[in-house]
């Protein structure tokens, strides 16, 4: 047996190289050059080290790697990066994917089975990717009598609303997509969208089970929005601001859950209901109404709704962290960036590499991100846990819980906050 | 029907089986080994209705009464009110094409009377059978026992669709198990043959 494949011919080897070269040049000429021109003419490039960034300059990265980091840093300062990658969609989607994996494995362990196991070498870690590919490749079936534009739009709007929610969450000091002064009000406004999207999707499907599911979702979300809003007012009273970054920053000494445990509990229960998690998964109650308002959604439309649901899950958990658990605040655990690399560079034998632009993130930012992620994952864990323990409750029990008990508890929470404020213990000008 | 000549394994413990399709003579009630309690039940019915009922057999825990279709309602009422039987376990239809009759057998039991807990009273009646049945619109009719034993509701619906016996007085004579568009013979009749058999 020879090492070279039996059909090896030198001429074909040369031909394959020439083929690849041809396709590379063709694609570069057709796409790459116009792209460079578009960037040259239409995009406003940042100024780095006193000179305007041009495509020519960008191409010099290849020759001089030390220019890479400043450009990267300037890119990280843009809104696009914030929206698409770090505190925004990409970061949240990554955490959501992790959530799905953890949920499946944890539920499997609770139920004495193994969960996803084969897809991906390690413990089925690629199962989610496989599921996503399957959903993308599936046919999308629209009910014949559906109101098609709304039915098509609903899953997209759902993901959009979830992404808007994420945009309001501060992850680390200064790291937030939309740092608005009325952040909490904006959160309430975005939450108010979800029941509308749900009922629109359900109603436009023109089918009975989605309709019942949509009505249930409407009842559930509307009746739990009121205790949700009321339970957060205690925090607002004590901090005197609606800006989420300021609320998080105000908890540098102690998180608000120490003083407002009632509000935290009410908020946690309303999170479960807003997210349609077991035991509050009535809008998707399988044995009663097939899949509730998701019944007629197929293929990637269903996948989008699931994506939106898990983004929402992350956003609510993050909101809980920001409001009650102190956001990014925590003791410094991140090791400081070694000074020598900035001042002297990396010495590898005879060569010394100095990399300008380090560090990318400050130590405080990285530490804040770590604490934020740890706390968020903890809250997500507690949101997932009831699924293995509780059965589903009934709509009348749910409504009486929302309207009688949680609203009452939320008012108790407000009175605690007011008491603390007027006693002069906490709040603006308080003792602590 | 071709009669089998060979004898099968016969049970010694049973009494002589009476010819089932047409029980012409009364069973020999004066036989010594008849169970006492069951004989008492049969005697009560015979005492009340006399010649209208025929006791087909009395076995341990099982008493079978054959009644004509005119009297089945009265006998069932007597069984419920006087003998404390309170529910029907099963309603079975049996087709006898050579007699041109369809037999409907009620198996009646009791939950409330602990002395009757072992007992099943078998009440059998017969409806005329037609060669070309039009279920619901022919002479194959019987009075429904639903007003006496409530539990026969679904059983009688099943007998109606499977054998074409219409139960007069049943509030809900609809199909139960068969498809709604079934237009063939009632399937449990003997002339409904399975293909290839």
């Amino acid at each position, binding site marked *: 047996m020879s090492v070279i494949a039996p059909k090896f011919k030198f001429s074909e080897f040369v031909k394959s190289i020439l083929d690849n070269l041809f396709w590379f040049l063709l694609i570069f000429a057709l796409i790459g050059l116009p792209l460079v021109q578009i960037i040259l003419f239409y995009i406003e490039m940042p100024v780095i080290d006193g000179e305007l960034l041009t495509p020519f300059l960008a191409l010099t990265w290849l020759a001089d790697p030390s220019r890479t980091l400043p450009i990267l840093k300037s890119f990280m300062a843009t809104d696009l990066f914030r929206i698409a990658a770090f505190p925004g969609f990409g970061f949240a989607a990554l955490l959501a994917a992790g959530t799905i994996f953890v949920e499946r494995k944890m539920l499997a362990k609770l139920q004495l089975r193994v969960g996803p196991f084969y897809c991906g070498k390690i413990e089925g870690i690629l199962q989610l990717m496989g599921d996503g590919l399957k959903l993308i490749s599936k046919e999308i079936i629209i009910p014949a009598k559906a109101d098609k534009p709304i039915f098509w739009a609903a899953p997209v709007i759902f993901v959009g609303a979830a992404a808007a929610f994420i945009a309001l969450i501060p992850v680390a000091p200064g790291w937030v997509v939309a740092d608005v002064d009325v952040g909490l009000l904006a959160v309430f406004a975005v939450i108010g969208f979800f029941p509308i999207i749900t009922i629109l999707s359900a109603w436009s499907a023109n089918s009975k089970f989605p309709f019942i599911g949509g009505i249930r979702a409407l009842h559930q979300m509307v009746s739990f929005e009121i205790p949700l809003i009321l339970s957060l007012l205690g925090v607002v009273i004590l901090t005197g601001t609606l800006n989420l970054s300021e609320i998080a920053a105000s908890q540098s000494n102690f998180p608000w859950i120490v003083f407002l445990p009632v509000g935290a509990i009410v908020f946690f229960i309303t999170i479960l209901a807003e997210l349609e998690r077991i035991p509050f998964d*009535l809008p998707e109650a399988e044995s009663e109404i097939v899949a509730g308002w998701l019944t007629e959604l197929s293929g990637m439309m269903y996948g989008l709704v699931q994506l939106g649901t898990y983004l929402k899950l992350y956003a609510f958990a993050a909101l809980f962290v920001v409001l009650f658990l102190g956001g990014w605040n925590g003791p410094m655990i991140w090791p400081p960036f070694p000074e020598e690399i900035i001042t002297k560079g990396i010495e590898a034998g005879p060569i010394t590499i100095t990399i300008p632009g380090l560090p990318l993130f400050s130590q405080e930012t990285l530490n804040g991100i770590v604490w934020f992620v740890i706390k968020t994952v903890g809250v997500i864990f507690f949101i997932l846990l009831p699924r293995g323990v509780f059965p589903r409750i009934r709509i009348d029990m749910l409504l009486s819980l929302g309207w009688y008990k949680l609203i009452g508890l939320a008012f108790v929470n407000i009175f605690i906050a007011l008491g603390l404020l007027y006693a002069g213990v906490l709040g603006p000008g308080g003792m602590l | 029907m071709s009669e089998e000549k060979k004898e099968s394994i016969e049970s010694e413990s049973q009494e002589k089986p009476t010819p089932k399709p047409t029980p012409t003579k009364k069973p020999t009630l004066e036989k010594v080994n008849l169970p006492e309690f069951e004989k008492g039940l049969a005697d009560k019915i015979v005492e009340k209705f006399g010649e209208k009922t025929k006791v087909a057999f009395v076995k341990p825990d099982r008493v079978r009464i054959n009644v004509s279709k005119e009297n089945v309602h009265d006998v069932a009422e007597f069984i419920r009110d006087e003998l404390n039987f309170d529910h029907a376990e099963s309603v079975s239809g049996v087709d006898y094409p050579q007699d041109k009759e369809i037999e409907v057998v009620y198996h009646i039991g009791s939950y409330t009377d602990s002395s009757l807990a072992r007992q099943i009273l078998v009440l059998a009646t017969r409806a005329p059978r037609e060669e070309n049945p039009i279920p619901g619109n022919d002479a194959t009719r019987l009075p429904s026992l639903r007003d006496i034993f409530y539990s026969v509701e679904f059983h009688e619906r099943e007998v109606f669709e499977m054998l074409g016996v219409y139960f007069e007085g049943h509030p809900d004579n609809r199909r139960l*198990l068969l498809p709604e568009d079934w237009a063939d013979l009632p399937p449990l009749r003997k002339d409904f043959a399975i293909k290839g058999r």
Partner: protein
Amino acid sequence: MSAKLPPGLALQKVDERIMTLNVGPQHPGSGHMRIIVQIDGDFIVACDPDPGYVHRGEEKMAEYRNYILNIPHLERPVIHDSCNVLYPYVLGVEELLGIEVPERAKYIRVIASELNRCIYIMYWLAIYGIFLGHSTMFMWPAGDRELLIDLMEKMSGARVTHAHFVPGGVRNDLPPNFEDVCLRQVNYFEKRIKEYAAVFYDNPILIARTEKTGILSRQDAIRLGTTGSVLRASGVDYDLRKKEPYDVYDELDFQTPVLKEGDSYARSKIPWLDMMESCRIIRNALAKMPKSGSVRVKLKPNPKGGDDSVYKRVESGRGSLGCYIVSDKKPEPYRLKLSVGSFRNLIALPYLLKGEKLGNMPSVYWSLNYWPVEADR
């Protein structure tokens, strides 16, 4: 056949605010049947069960096969409970043919029957759990069931459809060492099912959901002729293993659980309590069983019954299961009728669901211990 069609599933004329829902046959919460539900808001105003989607004509098929060939297909209605569903037929054929079964075979039958009852109830319980949205209660029974299925596999060679009972005894003797393995597994099984109380039967949400829903009073339970766990949950102590003991049940020491409430919670608890009694029966039977002896009486080939009819009944996982066999001196039964517990309990469904909330429909429906395939036969 120019027969005029009888009225189909004629629904009641209803007014505008009432919505008709077809729950099933393709619905995660219906099984192989359809429940036509009319709802006014969240309340069920009328309900019409429509079984028959898995009707296979077992009774007609039985008229074409002889008494031995009927064994495999008659256990198909409930493959999880195949020993119990075959039991009355086997008893009836034995009475028709006048066979006396060896003592050891009777004990083996009781053990197999109780194992099968547990296997069936575990499957039922798993589905009851998922009907209430409790996914852990779906996985645990489905997994613990395997313990007993392994035992049945040891005993009969098949995991579900055993065809182990034959007229005259059981097909095979127990494998060597079966008693020890059985005792060990049953003891572990009993320990496991006691843990279900913590996660399921004592769960406050479950109790709040199922208590005082779908109440079937004692009078109604008797009047509707319900049977099995439905009847015993309504306070009627009627279990054929006690009331009309077949085989060796009169020599064994056990109780039949009875609850008085008659709601879905009681109906769902009775099978669970039943399983513990089954474990007790199995242990008891293993101790009392003759250690050796014949397990089967050889029959003549193609046996024929007399000109007679028998009605035999046993207590299956779903209640009393009766088998009415009419014989006419031929090798095949002239008529065979299975009166099954599922079919008898189904009649209670419209009465229980009327006025109930839609959210209670799965729990009430499944608490009736209803097995659609068995009801259709």
